[in-house]
């Protein structure tokens, strides 16, 4: 078995009486594209929050690349190479697309206590940013303000920003949310191109995309992982069918 890049052990989080994460344990080998699916309220966002550091778990441990990160602040995890995209697009609206990605590059190129030279004319920032934009097909829109981008373009920009920091692992929080079918297909292609080169945890409602892309899938229900396995196994798992895919879901 390949070396685990991300190890989650007994992760538990309660909000009042609600258990949002119930002893979640999961191992992601480097290079895997692992999808998390589950009905609304299953605790997918809480899981992402705990992995990125925005939510503090009640108990349990998270190790990334062999290092314990359970209590590290958000920015430290990002600097270690754990990048994320947001479910609801949260970009810098008054910056151009290129500025947005360049900021992400900047975050991973040393400290920013540099007060003098113009950041926008630094090739060291703009070139990798331009490359990341090209990877998601936004090269033409580099000089456009985020406020003037379409919804789909913003979703792509989200991923470009996550990629720009050259992360070891990507946490994609519903990257297809609100996308048209055509845009979704293109995004699936782009994600497929990333496979193997980068470890991905994909949280997604679009079941077709998940089954097309994932190496393995975990099913989260009421904060618990009820099944983990390759797509074919998940598809035929009776517990999963009952809890999530819905009994009688016709597939061929």
């Amino acid at each position: 078995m390949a070396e685990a890049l991300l190890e989650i052990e007994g992760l538990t989080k309660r909000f009042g009486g609600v258990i949002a994460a119930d002893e979640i344990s999961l191992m992601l080998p480097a290079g895997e594209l692992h999808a998390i699916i589950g009905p609304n309220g299953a605790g997918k966002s809480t899981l992402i929050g705990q992995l990125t550091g925005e939510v503090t778990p009640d108990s349990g441990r998270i190790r990334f690349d062999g290092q314990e990160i359970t209590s590290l602040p958000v920015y430290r995890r990002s600097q270690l190479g754990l990048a994320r995209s947001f479910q609801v697009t949260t970009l810098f609206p008054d910056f151009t697309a290129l500025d947005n990605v360049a900021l992400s590059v900047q975050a991973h190129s040393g400290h920013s206590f540099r007060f003098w030279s113009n950041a926008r004319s630094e090739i060291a920032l703009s070139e990798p940013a331009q490359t990341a934009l090209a990877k998601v097909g936004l090269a033409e829109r580099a000089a456009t303000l985020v406020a003037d981008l379409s919804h789909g373009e913003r979703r792509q920009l989200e991923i470009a920003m996550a990629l720009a920091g050259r992360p070891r692992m990507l946490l994609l929080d519903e990257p297809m949310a609100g996308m048209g079918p055509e845009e979704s297909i293109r995004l699936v292609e782009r994600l497929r191109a990333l496979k193997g080169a980068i470890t991905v945890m994909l949280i997604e409602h679009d079941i077709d995309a998940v089954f097309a892309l994932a190496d393995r899938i975990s099913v989260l229900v009421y904060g618990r992982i009820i099944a983990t396995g390759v797509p074919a196994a998940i598809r035929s798992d009776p517990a999963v069918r009952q809890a999530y895919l819905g009994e009688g879901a016709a597939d061929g």
Partner: protein
Amino acid sequence: MSPPAKPSVKTGWSIGIVTPRIGLNIAVIATLAVVPAYAGLTGNAFALTLFTRVVILAIAALSLNLIMGFGGMVSFGHAAYLGIGGYAVGILAKEGIGSGFVQWPIAIGAAALYALVVGALSLRTRGVYFIMITLAFAQMIYYVAIGLDRYGGDDGLTIYRRSGFDGLIDLSNRTVFYYLCFGLLLVGIYLVWRIVNSRFGMVIQGARSNERRMRAIGFPTFRYQLVCFVIAGAMCGLAGALLANHTNFISPAMMHWTRSGDLIVMVVLGGMQAIFGPLIGALTFLLLEEGLSRVTDYSNLILGPFLLLVAISWQGGIDGLIAGTRRG
């Protein structure tokens, strides 16, 4: 269907290449440059006094724009830095230390230190809480100044000699003093311009725009905001030292909360996130205040609604209005 691609000519908040804006900025700078000549020719000494005040408060507003306009940190206690800078000069002068080489670094250092403390505590909060904490600290300093009986308490303290610079520059010469303030303002504007476009400036502006996102992409935003806060505090401390020298007087009124409000109004009026906005705002505000107070006793009755109108209808202040005319 996607809308037709727009050419991306909108410059948004970015600095430079907008001609009407540059025209206005040059006109303002040119006007300020010839004020002493005008005052000398017409014998209107008051013009020099008024414009010295404009230039000094423009430096204070400039520093506020750095944190409030570019950094999104609405400090409602900015006059405290003016007071600290001023009191540093006044107290040292009273104690027999008249050298500007001592007074000014201490004024700047004391304001920076105060900014460090206020920033370290207030930057852990956001929104209204942030505004209230900065105001509370400023009020505290205000009442401390009132309690300083040795330095005049409520009545303030007269400074009998302006800061001395060993014959290098004579501040008691009003024209020389004016040009010193004007020069420092230009240096300050240049510094702010460099800072906001630097990597540091990108972090500060990114944090204004979307702080959560900044942390997610790997920026420890707090420390950058704190450093920004200290830079602004130091700059405003210098303005306070200048103001004390200008009026030859310090009093708690320098840091009354309404003064903090005035500074915010200047920044908003001139245009937040505009490099020359604070100068244009300070100029407009102080000239209006002066002009109206000559015509009527109820100048605030006119000034207030006018400012309200500006805040509501011209987002981006005067700078936004001027720059906006380019579009369409």
